[in-house]
């Protein structure tokens, strides 16, 4: 849980209030100036009414250069960030041809498969020559090749379930599966900090949605008991089915889900469990099999396991793994399988090759090395940051670590100062996080060496001093104190 110091909360509210007041003032002048010049949209309502894009026009545009930074190389541990300039006070940004070589702390490259890999890339190019970059057809019509069949088997084996089905995009996987499984008269209970794709899928399904407090199994139990006892709203008929949706690693908090308790509660109340392992598959666990392996949960207890290949496998797409009947049913009814183009064959080959590397089936131990490296890197980085006095969220072993910033002015300050020192970080603010809790999010990769991490720590420490985000006192060096104590005895 994040406990924000009172003074910081006050200053943050004050800053937002000031920005809001200035924004309203400028809107007022803009309205007067627009009276003079008439637009040619007579009779049409504007695409965005006044307050809908207030946040975008008056707050976001000021710090627009911290987001959407283009790169011109692969998103590896070091990459080239393209410089942009603005002639009209950040309203529009133009690309230049200058690039800066920066350390990458922002891309989702957990196992280092982002750039051209010695085992994967030759095989990917082979597949490209054999199967072309796309099949231009849906899976049920003529888009299933031998590569797709091999991929699904490979994924099912890796995750530990009998069967799997693969789609071309992770977002669509969530949005198209939930409407098929849950309809009117069903209940979806989802964690309060679930990703937008799950929220959209739940809304599109027509089922009733209830939310439980983030990662609190006791509150989940309370909600389940209440809902089963009350039944459907207004008619009080019993629910048709109940599904609990949780994520493996929450991308904005870096926390692991409390899976064993949640699974036992769901078993007791006969609810189905849907686990979204977008960030955790391939990145945690002894052999990279995700949250279930790390926390010791049997995969047969989780009804539906979903994940994406964008983060740890360096490709694109999403999968659903479950029992054979479930996958057969999904292949017959899911709109993403019936109407969307199948996953691109080179991307499929990348996934197969990277799974082989992780499992060690390519004949080398690179997979085990990568997994050990990412665990080591994450734990080292997190403990060092905490020692320096930053407020870092997340559990041990999780490669995602958010650093709290709180004040809106510190967001662009942190981002720009780090870029000046050749470190690229990601800062997140409202609406992806609550208004007061803006943060910078670091994603560690197995491709980072110890020197890279030490440099990053130096830069972050100096920028942190400059910007003022060391909210906790730094730990003093322990060795001197222990030396004195030994002397006394």
């Amino acid at each position, binding site marked *: 849980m994040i406990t924000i110091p009172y003074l910081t909360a006050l200053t943050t509210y004050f800053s937002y209030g000031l920005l809001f007041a200035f924004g309203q003032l400028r809107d007022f002048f803009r309205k007067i100036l627009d009276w003079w010049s008439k637009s040619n949209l007579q009779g049409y309502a504007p695409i965005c009414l006044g307050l809908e894009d207030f946040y975008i026009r008056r707050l976001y545009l000021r710090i627009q250069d911290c987001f959407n930074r*283009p790169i*011109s190389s692969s998103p590896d541990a070091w990459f080239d960030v393209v410089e942009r300039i603005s002639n009209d006070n950040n309203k529009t940004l133009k690309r230049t041809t200058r690039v800066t070589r920066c350390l990458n702390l922002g891309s989702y490259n957990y196992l280092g498969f982002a750039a051209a890999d010695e085992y994967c890339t030759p095989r990917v190019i082979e597949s490209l020559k054999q199967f072309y970059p796309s099949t231009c057809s849906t899976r049920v019509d003529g888009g299933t090749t031998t590569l797709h069949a091999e991929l699904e088997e490979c994924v099912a084996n890796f995750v530990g379930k009998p069967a799997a089905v693969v789609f071309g995009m992770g977002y669509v996987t969530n949005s198209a599966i939930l409407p098929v499984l849950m309809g009117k008269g069903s209940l979806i209970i989802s964690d309060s900090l679930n990703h937008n794709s799950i929220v959209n899928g739940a809304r599109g399904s027509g089922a009733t949605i209830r939310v439980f407090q983030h990662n609190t199994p006791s509150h989940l139990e309370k909600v389940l008991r209440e809902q089963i006892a009350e039944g459907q709203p207004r008619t009080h008929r019993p629910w048709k089915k109940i599904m609990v949706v949780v994520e493996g690693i929450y991308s904005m908090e870096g926390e692991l889900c409390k899976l064993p308790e949640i699974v036992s509660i769901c078993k007791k109340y006969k609810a189905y469990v849907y686990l979204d392992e977008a960030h955790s598959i391939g990145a945690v666990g002894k052999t990279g099999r995700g949250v279930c392996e790390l926390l010791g949960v049997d995969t047969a207890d989780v009804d539906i396991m979903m994940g994406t290949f964008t983060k740890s496998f360096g490709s694109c797409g999403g999968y659903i793994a479950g029992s054979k009947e479930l996958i057969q049913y999904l292949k017959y009814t899911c709109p993403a399988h019936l109407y969307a183009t199948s996953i691109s064959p080179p991307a499929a080959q990348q996934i197969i090759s990277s799974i082989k590397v992780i499992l060690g089936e390519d004949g080398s131990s690179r997979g085990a090395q990568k997994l050990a490296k990412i665990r080591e890197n994450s734990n080292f980085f997190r403990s060092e940051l905490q020692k320096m006095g930053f407020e870092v969220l997340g559990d041990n072993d999780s490669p995602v670590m958010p650093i709290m910033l709180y004040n809106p002015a510190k967001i662009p300050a942190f981002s720009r100062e780090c870029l000046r020192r050749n470190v690229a970080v990601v800062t997140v603010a409202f609406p992806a996080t609550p208004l007061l809790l803006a943060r910078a999010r670091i994603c560690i990769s197995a491709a980072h060496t110890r020197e890279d991490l030490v440099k990053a720590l130096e830069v972050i420490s100096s920028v942190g001093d400059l910007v003022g985000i060391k909210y906790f006192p730094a730990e003093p060096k322990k060795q001197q104190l222990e030396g004195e104590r030994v002397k006394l005895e």
Partner: protein
Amino acid sequence: MDTMFSAFETMAKFVSDWGTLAFDTPYARAVVFGVPIRGHLLVEGLLLVVILFLLSQKSYKPPKRPLTKKEVDELCDEWVPEPLIPSITEDMKYEPPVLESAAGPHAVINGKEVVNFTSANYLGLLGHDKLQDSCIKALEKYGVGSCGPRGFYGTIDVHLDCEARIAKFLGTSDSILYSYGLSTMFSTIPAFCKKGDVIVVDEGVHWGIQNGLHLSRSTIIYFKHNDMKSLESILENATHDNKRAKKLRRYIIVEAVYQNSGQIAPLDEIIKLKEKYRFRVILDESNSFGVLGSSGRGLTEHFNVPIEKVDIVTAAMGHALATEGGFCTGSSRVIDHQRLSSSGYVFSASLPPYLASAAITAIDVLEGHPDLITKLKANIATLHKGLSDLQGLEIVSHPESPIVFLRLKRSTGSTKGDLQLLEDIADHLLKEHSIFVATSKRSTVDKCKLPAGIRLFISAAHTESDLGKACESLKRATALVLAGQ
């Protein structure tokens, strides 16, 4: 005894004196309808006291008894959920044929070479040398995935180049790339249409648009498939008593070439209606981009309508451009708004860079070789001529649409029966004649009610002999299957 009696007498006299006073005092008298009433104040006073007494009583409410823990436990034990999925029937076990080679105009299934009519590779660009080269270069430089959403270092320079190229080709000011064709429509629509807006949409649109409409929570009105009279009457009804046009946004959504029936939307009439009734038009050009119009610029070129009149144009690139993904194009205001409020763009990883560079090369090839479009048009015309005298099946798609849609002339009465018959024809075609076609399949969550049929996707890479063979085989297969019915 005597004193008590006399005390009692005094008290009674006292009370009666007060009573007479209350009754007889001047202000205790009223004259109502000519009748003097005496002592009404006393009665009113008593009434007031009674009222106050009643008000101070608590009203009767049945006591609220929340469920005890034991009762909740019992309810939870008794509750039995439905199974997660219904039981598997025979037709759910259908497995599509697995290709052993690429999905070009000729493919290999089960060791045999077949003519492939299921891949929407309209211009035959799959396997083109230039596209393969640009993909290989991009793979070597950037790897496969882009490892991040567009806002967090997932924007690679090929994405920006691709967006600029598409905008230049179509003549609009800007465009935005999506990483999947299906997500383009269902992310664009909720970004612009909010609760309370009015959307008029054709009833034959595909699932992506239907899902976008559902997520937008606007008021949705369907008009008959490709029927302009129905559209006009609905527009008339929707606007004739609407005075709040300043705040309400109104949209018409149509597809250029409908995936579910192969019809082409008459854009010139739609633009006339749009201007008359002040609606905005959202057009889905997935199957017409690179196909219609003399240089492949789509439906707007086909009908000679300037592209500024269409407010939002979206398309999936998995058809003529032979890559994956989708794009949306329009004025800069429209595109900039989507960069922050379109959920499929903001919350999802960006398109792999090699697919974006393939798209750029595909547009370059298309611009440099307009003869591909003429070849495609010639192929479509040949197929229409060859299939004009087919028995049992009729062509219901537009003569210029690249999707040739064949429907049963006489339906068996149920959709299931129709589908079974069509699948038998398709199976026979594949096994005996080595022609690979696809029947239309519907999901359980799809609301489209158009009848099913057999779809053939024509490509510019199909040769004359391929088309001739297809026509012959179709005639023989339909005669066989429908005769044995």
